[in-house]
């Protein structure tokens, strides 16, 4: 029964080793899906390459459905799995700042490490920027503290907040994903694609 680390089926050190192995899988999949290229990632926002949407959305629904099934089969205790807490205003503000960083830099943190690993110098510079950005937050924390801790909603589930059952929300999300994939295929045909 999972999570293996929580039920002490694996030791803390084994868990760190598993983190390394899972990281290898994560990096391999991202790189092999084209996420080490900023031009491919940024293509999402101009419609000429919608790989990001397809990979990201497919991954989210695959993991979500897997979690639900594992929970139903009794393989995974969902009550102890980490659920990100929601601080409403910092979630929105942080997302806006990250979105601006995305369109300027063409990477997000995970993908920039993938780009850096295969020699992309722009990705290495982006990683350098990440360290500066985190340091700015740590040093300027008194400035951000109020926003950071405002509107603490706990760790609510999105389906509860929308007043529907988990199954219905999951079903609707899959429908939305499928519709988005149809739109993405259409956009890639409509907008010219650079060869790079």
């Amino acid at each position, binding site marked *: 029964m999972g999570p293996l680390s929580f039920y002490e089926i694996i030791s803390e050190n084994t868990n760190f080793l598993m983190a390394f192995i899972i990281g290898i899988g994560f990096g391999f999949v991202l790189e092999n899906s084209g996420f080490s290229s900023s031009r491919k990632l940024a293509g999402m926002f101009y419609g000429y390459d919608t790989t990001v949407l397809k990979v990201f959305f497919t991954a989210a629904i695959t993991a979500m459905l897997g979690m639900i099934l594992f929970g139903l089969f009794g393989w995974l205790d969902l009550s102890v799995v980490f*659920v990100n807490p*929601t601080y409403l205003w910092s979630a929105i503000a*942080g997302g*806006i700042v990250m979105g601006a960083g995305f369109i300027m830099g063409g990477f997000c943190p995970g993908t920039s490490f993938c780009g850096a690993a295969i020699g992309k110098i722009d990705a290495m510079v982006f990683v350098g920027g990440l*360290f500066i950005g985190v340091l700015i937050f*740590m040093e300027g924390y008194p400035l951000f503290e109020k926003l950071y801790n405002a509107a603490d909603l706990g760790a609510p589930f999105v389906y509860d907040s929308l007043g529907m059952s988990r199954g219905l929300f999951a079903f609707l999300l899959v429908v939305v994903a499928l519709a988005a994939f149809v739109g993405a295929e259409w956009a890639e045909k409509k907008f010219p694609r650079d060869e790079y």
Partner: protein
Amino acid sequence: MEKERSRKYWNPYFGGVMLGLVLLAANFIAGRGLGASGAIKSAVVAGVQTVAPAHTEKAAAYAEYAKGHGSSPLKSWLVFELLGVLVGAFISGAWAGRLKFKVEHSPKITGKRRLIFALLGGIFFGLGSQLGRGCTSGAALSGMAVLSLGGFITMIAIFGTAFALAYFFRKLWI
């Protein structure tokens, strides 16, 4: 030209299923999702602790971080995971013939301009990931997989903002 030499990328839907399975494995094994910015924070905290130990005892952000974490900030799940990311991406790039030092940019801009905006983008993303308690991996993707409200909000804010600003930065990319 490059496409002829290097192997093609995976089909994106197949890549997405594989990424979803990696994320599922992380939850099954460690009871948590994937991440990236958290490891950077660990490294920043460890670095500042080494350079200015007195400062980290006084400043609120470091004190709060120390309270929530164990002995050494670098001995964390995300740090090991992110080291794995570097190895995994390197293996994939080596296997596909994509290992090469280069500044990738649109032919319409200079490499220097690309690097300036890469640095700026990194700074914004680093700062935003702290405010948002995680980045595209930790907050958005992993949050969506566990159906966290915050995960969906952050995902919409990241992609919505990038779409909204795309017009103003179009010269960088198209």
